[in-house]
């Protein structure tokens, strides 16, 4: 029974997408029910699997598919669902369901009763996206995982470029595709290295090989670092992070999907799934920790200065993903999974709220908002839940998961994990600084969007008819309210230190590997970090509030002075890439252009000219007289016969 559910999990949204695409043109009304039904059925399947997981304390369902004859390492089309996969797939389907319902309202054109002409393909792509993510989650073979991984990349390209008539959206889509593709190359080669090293591409085979010490240390390090490159690309970590803020050009529900449940979560999920590979090599682990430390603080600082609400959320996603990777580097995949879950809930909520705001204001710029608390009371209260969770205020979900991450990092800093202690300290200091900055930017976003005076210039400069902002329709408000519940309450799952470890458990003998003693498999909350982080939240939020007051209820980021422009542009990483990578590539492209034009084309055009010249000579013989033609044909035939006679 469970095995069937595991297969159905990715299959149902995919079938729904195929169905929606095939009926989309003929019967646009059927598209929304189709994809929502497909996603809802997948949600039910995930719910069933989650129930089994919780009741039995760790799921362990395997589906063995056909084995592909490779002549090398084993490659089987296998699926496997453990506790982590069960929880994550439930999270994915929940967010996807909310997004699908929300999209029916969001893509409705003003004054139109039904969604626009692009809705069928959009809905189908979202469903495929969901299916691909679920395939990644339940894959038990690295190549099956890569299939889902790449399909997600392609879907993200199409969805970010949904408004393809806009230059920015096209550029953002290409950027997202190319940058994640750079990482994917690393992932592919990492898979090769690990698969060959382990003699199988099965994920559990690889981890078993690592645990038993069969894999050479150099293979392990190389494979781990290459996998990390793929993770960095997909989860938008430094230095391949800059596509995610630009991906805001896509529709807001897509941002919610990408940021909360799919795509970026895939990278974190991969590390959690294969954390044995990372924990076994301190080089890989230090690299992971440093990437996380740099990204979390840098992205949070960049979020502080963004003028656009969605870009604030985008940078916060980058920062929060770094939190998860920090927990993984510290050796606690439970803490990382916990934060992944809570983050999915509150970030999806935040994006849906931002979409509701953008939908009614007609812009995503913070300058066009202001004073919305009175206009949109429902949205404001739900958004407040999300922002408080993001800031990490304890009763809400983010508070608990953030404390779990900090606790895990503290353990690492104290030398209780495979991560070297110095890297643990770097991670801990960076994480604590990020706590303060996170509180600051969430406060700023709230103050600018929902408090203060209403923007006088609202919408006038955007050519949208001026009407007072209102709360969104039920199709959009419903998912928002639905997501507000987990965003608020999910943190309570961390109250008992043993619940999550059992739910996220592998449910198999893998738990008793050589790292079981070294790796903290329970959630730990350190009192020192908890108190420190609460103080830092207060400092960050209070400081921002004071800056807002002193700036005359305008953007507190004005106090940043010159640094503001630097932060707005994300530390100008893109410009660095422009100068180094892009310019170098453009300089290099002159070489093949020259080879093509001056070497290869000479032969091509030379053969063309030769043929033309020969044709001119031969044309002389074409008199148009049938008898000449017959004579030539017979003379030729005679010559051939003569040759045959003579040659004999």
């Amino acid at each position: 029974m469970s095995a069937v559910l595991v297969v159905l999990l990715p299959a149902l949204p995919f079938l729904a997408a195929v169905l929606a695409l095939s009926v989309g043109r003929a019967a646009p009304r059927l598209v929304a029910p189709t994809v929502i039904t497909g996603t809802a059925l997948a949600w039910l399947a995930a719910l069933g699997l989650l129930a089994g997981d919780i009741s039995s304390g760790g799921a362990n369902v395997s589906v063995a598919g056909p084995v592909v004859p490779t002549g090398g390492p084993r490659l089987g089309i296998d699926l496997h669902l453990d506790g982590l996969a069960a929880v994550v797939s439930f999270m994915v389907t929940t967010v996807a369901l909310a997004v699908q319902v929300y999209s029916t309202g969001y893509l409705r054109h003003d004054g139109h009763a039904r969604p626009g002409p692009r809705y069928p393909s959009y809905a189908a792509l979202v469903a495929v996206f969901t299916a691909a993510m679920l395939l990644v989650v339940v894959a038990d073979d690295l190549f099956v995982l890569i299939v889902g991984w790449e399909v997600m990349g392609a879907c993200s390209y199409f969805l970010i470029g949904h408004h393809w008539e806009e230059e920015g959206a096209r550029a953002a889509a290409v950027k997202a595709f190319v940058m994640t593709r750079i990482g994917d190359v690393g992932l592919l080669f990492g898979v090769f290295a690990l698969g060959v090293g382990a003699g199988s591409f099965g994920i559990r085979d690889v981890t078993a090989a690592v645990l038993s010490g069969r894999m050479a240390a150099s293979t392990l390090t190389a494979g781990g670092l290459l996998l990390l490159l793929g993770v960095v690309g997909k989860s938008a970590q430094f230095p391949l992070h800059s596509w995610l803020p630009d991906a805001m050009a896509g529709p807001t529900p897509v941002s919610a999907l990408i940021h909360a449940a799919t795509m970026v979560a895939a990278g974190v999920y991969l590390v959690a799934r294969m954390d044995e590979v990372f924990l076994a090599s301190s080089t890989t682990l230090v690299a992971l920790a440093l990437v996380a430390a740099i990204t979390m603080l840098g992205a949070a600082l960049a979020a502080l200065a963004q003028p656009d609400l969605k870009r604030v959320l985008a940078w916060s996603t980058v920062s929060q993903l770094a939190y998860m990777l920090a927990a993984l580097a510290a050796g606690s995949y439970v803490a990382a999974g916990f934060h992944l879950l809570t983050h999915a809930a509150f970030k999806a909520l935040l994006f849906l709220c931002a979409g509701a705001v953008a939908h009614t204001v007609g812009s995503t710029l913070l300058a066009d908002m202001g004073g919305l608390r009175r206009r949109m009371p429902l949205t404001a209260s739900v958004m407040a839940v999300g922002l408080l969770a993001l800031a990490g205020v304890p009763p809400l979900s983010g508070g608990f998961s953030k404390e779990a991450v900090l606790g895990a990092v503290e353990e690492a800093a104290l030398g209780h994990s495979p991560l070297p202690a110095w890297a643990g300290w770097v991670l801990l200091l960076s994480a604590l600084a990020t706590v303060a900055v996170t509180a600051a930017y969430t406060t700023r976003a709230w103050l600018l969007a929902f408090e203060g005076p209403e923007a006088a210039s609202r919408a006038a400069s955007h050519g949208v008819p001026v009407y007072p902002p209102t709360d969104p329709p039920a199709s959009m408000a419903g998912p928002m309210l639905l997501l507000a519940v987990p965003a608020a309450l999910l943190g309570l799952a961390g109250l008992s230190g043993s619940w999550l470890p059992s739910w996220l458990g592998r449910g198999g003998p893998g738990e008793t590997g050589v790292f079981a003693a070294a790796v903290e498999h329970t959630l730990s909350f350190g009192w020192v970090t908890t108190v420190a982080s609460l103080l830092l939240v207060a400092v960050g939020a209070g400081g921002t509030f004071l800056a807002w007051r002193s700036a005359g209820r305008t953007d507190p980021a004005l106090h940043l002075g010159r640094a503001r422009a630097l932060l707005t542009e994300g530390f100008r990483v893109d410009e660095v890439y422009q100068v180094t990578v892009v310019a170098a590539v453009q300089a290099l492209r002159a070489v093949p252009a020259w080879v093509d034009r001056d070497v290869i084309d000479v032969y091509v055009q030379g053969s063309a000219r030769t043929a033309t010249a020969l044709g001119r000579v031969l044309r002389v013989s074409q008199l148009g007289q049938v008898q000449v033609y017959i004579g030539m044909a017979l003379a030729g035939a005679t010559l051939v016969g003569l040759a045959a006679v003579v040659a004999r």
Partner: protein
Amino acid sequence: MNAAVTVVFALLGVLAVGSALLVVTTRQVVHAALWLVVALGAVAGCYLLLRAEFVAWVQVLVYVGAVVVLLLFALMLTKAPIGVSEDLDAGLAQRVVAAMVALATGALLVTVLVDGFSGEVIDQGATGGAPAIGASVFRSWVLPFEVLSVLLLAALVGAIVLSRRDVPGAGAADSVAGGR
């Protein structure tokens, strides 16, 4: 007997080839048609000597009787010149080249035939009268025979369509030619 047949065959062969050469070289069109009658008749005699009696009579009936008459009609309808005419042949150069090609082809054929079949002798036992041919055609060759009858019908229809002037489409051909 056998030697006599061979001698007669050789004479008929010389007659056939000689009149064939006259067919292709004479400068009077009507003479060409008449020499064709002689050549085809000589070939019919050859058939007789090869014991292919039915084929010989068909040759006389169809070729000499029908085809040549048809050719004469064509000559008449195209207002072929009566008497010696100089523009029946192509230019000298083309004739020389044509002769060379023809002789080369002939030489090649002779080479191959002499090489392959010199010394072989035809046994005079086999006969080919009308009863034998009829039995063979309607027993072993009936399917090609029927197909051939369809072909003949198609050719008949085609010839009628081509030569009628009041058929739709013929006018179109005229107008194309007129536009030249």
